[in-house]
């Protein structure tokens, strides 16, 4: 059953875009809950939102936007057949992802140290809206963090392929799709950041 390998770039891109849609829809359920509960508990949401560490959030936003830029540059570099640059740029992207997750770890440790986590006694005794806010925050950001991890792994796989030469200037749809996925991870954060850190 040796199907002659057929490469359909248009098809591969279409499939990837459909997949990105499903990822957005996955998060949309959480945004829907956010909208509903914000309208029900505006005061508690505002109070909790003011306690968020805006510094951490801003830093992570800058890191992710930078990483997206690096990923996009990697796609351009491979079209110019600059393999070394592709590897450096992908390495930079992955480094950004790791830094992002480390920051997240520090931020969450601080929060948990203050007794703020889903099901904690402090939240159980606080106002109801506050518990909903933090539970949503942890689940949304946790799920996003998981996507950062998946995206970074994907880019690492792509980098190995680039090094081996199976992804090259003549066939780079895998890198392009990997970068698309990474932009999605970035995009979702661009919505999470203002909703939890800024507008409240």
């Amino acid at each position, binding site marked *: 059953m040796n199907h002659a390998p057929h490469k359909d770039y248009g098809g591969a891109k279409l*499939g990837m875009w459909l997949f990105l849609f499903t990822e957005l829809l*996955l998060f949309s359920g959480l945004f829907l*809950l956010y909208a509903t509960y914000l309208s029900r508990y505006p005061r508690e949401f505002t109070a909790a939102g003011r306690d968020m560490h805006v510094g951490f959030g801003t830093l992570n936003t800058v890191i992710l936007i930078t990483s997206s830029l690096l990923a996009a540059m990697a796609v351009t570099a491979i079209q110019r057949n600059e393999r070394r640059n592709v590897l450096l740029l992908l390495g930079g992207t992955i480094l950004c992802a790791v830094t992002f997750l480390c920051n997240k770890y520090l931020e969450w440790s601080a929060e948990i140290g203050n007794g703020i986590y889903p099901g904690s006694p402090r939240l159980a005794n606080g106002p109801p809206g506050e518990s909903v806010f933090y539970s949503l925050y942890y689940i949304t950001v946790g799920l996003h963090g998981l996507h950062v991890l998946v995206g970074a792994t994907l880019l690492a796989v792509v980098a190995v392929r680039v090094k081996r030469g199976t992804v090259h200037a003549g066939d780079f749809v895998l890198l392009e799709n990997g970068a698309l996925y990474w932009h999605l991870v970035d995009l979702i954060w661009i919505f999470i950041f203002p909703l939890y850190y800024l507008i409240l």
Partner: protein
Amino acid sequence: MATVQPTPTSFWNDTGKTGITSWIFSTDHKRIGLLYFYSTFGFFLVGVLLGLLLRIELMAPGRTIMGPATYNATFTVHGVVMIFLFIIPGMPGAFGNLVMPIQIGARDVAFPRLNLFSWWLYAIGAVIVLTSLFTGGGPPDTGWTFYVPFSARTGTNVSLAVLGVFVIGFSSILTGINFVTTIHRLRAEGMTWGRLPLFVWSIYATAWVQVLATPILGITLVLIMAERILGAGLFDPGRGGDPVMYQHLFWIYSHPAVYIMILPAMGVISDVIPVFARKPIFGYKMIAFSSLAIAAAGSLVWGHHMYTSGMSDTAILVFSFLTFVVAIPSAIKVFNWVSTLYKGSISLEAPMLFALSFILLFSIGGLTGLILGAAATDIHVHDTHFVVGHFHYVMFGGAGFAFFSAMHYWLPKFYGRKYAEKPAVIAWAFMFTGFNILYFSMMVLGLKGMPRRYYDYLPEFAPLNLVSTIGSWILAVGLIIMLVNLFRGLFWGEPVGSNPWGGATLEWSIPTPPPTENFDQEPVVTHGPYDFTKAGVP
């Protein structure tokens, strides 16, 4: 490419290898289709068995064969198995995979390895669901809807079952992505959108629903796990959550999901009716369009499951209106099928009998759906056996009978052998009779006020419950005859040629069983899917 065209070998013996690995690691859409067929149909039989047990329990008031806790687990597992393990993956996974690529003139789907991965995800999800039955606190007892707050608190193994369903949902998304891409990119030359067989149109609409709705199921299931494991309290009123929000999220997926179940079924019927009526389909464009219309409008009606849960009157009115809107494209299909039959030269063979009974049973199911969709009547029959009857008319009488029709219509093509006609008709007669006795009694019981999912009932409901249970046995007898006849025929029956039914779609133009590459050269399509004259069929 070799200049001499070798005789095409069938996909059954192309590799020279037999063994299980030549199947479970195959990327051939036909093999994957059969994998899906056997795995989903196996779960269908498990579901049937559980359903029969439920009917025996309800045969008489009080305890018959099982205690209340077992009863709760049985109806939950019956629902989970039938919906998530059989009917959602079944039709797209089995017949979508087997037939759709050939019908559009393609060699395979767009992403063959992803296709195999989807089946693996399905298999892994199924194993997780099965594991949940025998470990931890025992099988889930929440009903297949996993409603909070009960699902967040019950001691049974809900988390694991939900994880299994999550994995299966991921498989469903990947199948959807694969099929949408395939239908966009791999149509043969001349296979324009206006020449797509209607089964392909329905698989296309289904694939979009799979892509757009299933992620919401994913996040909903993640949230149940968060409730149980983290104690997130997002749906816990004691901590500011709202259980009704869970119901919204659940039905935003699960209502469109019923169209994942019924749309491919409608596609089968649209392909079978013209072949056995010897007439081009009536209203091709409207049937194709109505599939998309059902997929679109069906995504906006989830609220009709929640009229009694606490919504504003405006919301109820809007959801009720939209529910009635969905009835329009469904009716368009029914009228077009009936018009196709008009003055046709109808041959009543097994696939056609199942297709004709689909029209009747689906119409009953659809019209009783409007009784539930109208808020005023829904208040009276909500959560009664009327809902159970309605649902089975659409899902079993509709999707199930279409699945049987597809089995009789397409499986001989892939096995090269055919079942015996007479036992198939007898089996159909048993099933059709048993089905109506079984589920029509349920609808009457519901109108009289018997609630669904109750372990025990008042004595005045006893006679009809007994009738219903007897119906389930007649149905089971028919099912056994059908299975024995069908599979005996597929393995040892009379050999069939490439076009046993006289169909005009592309799958009938290639050898039986199909060669691995489907077509020895890329087909060029010059006529529509139901143009029997141009296809050279007498």
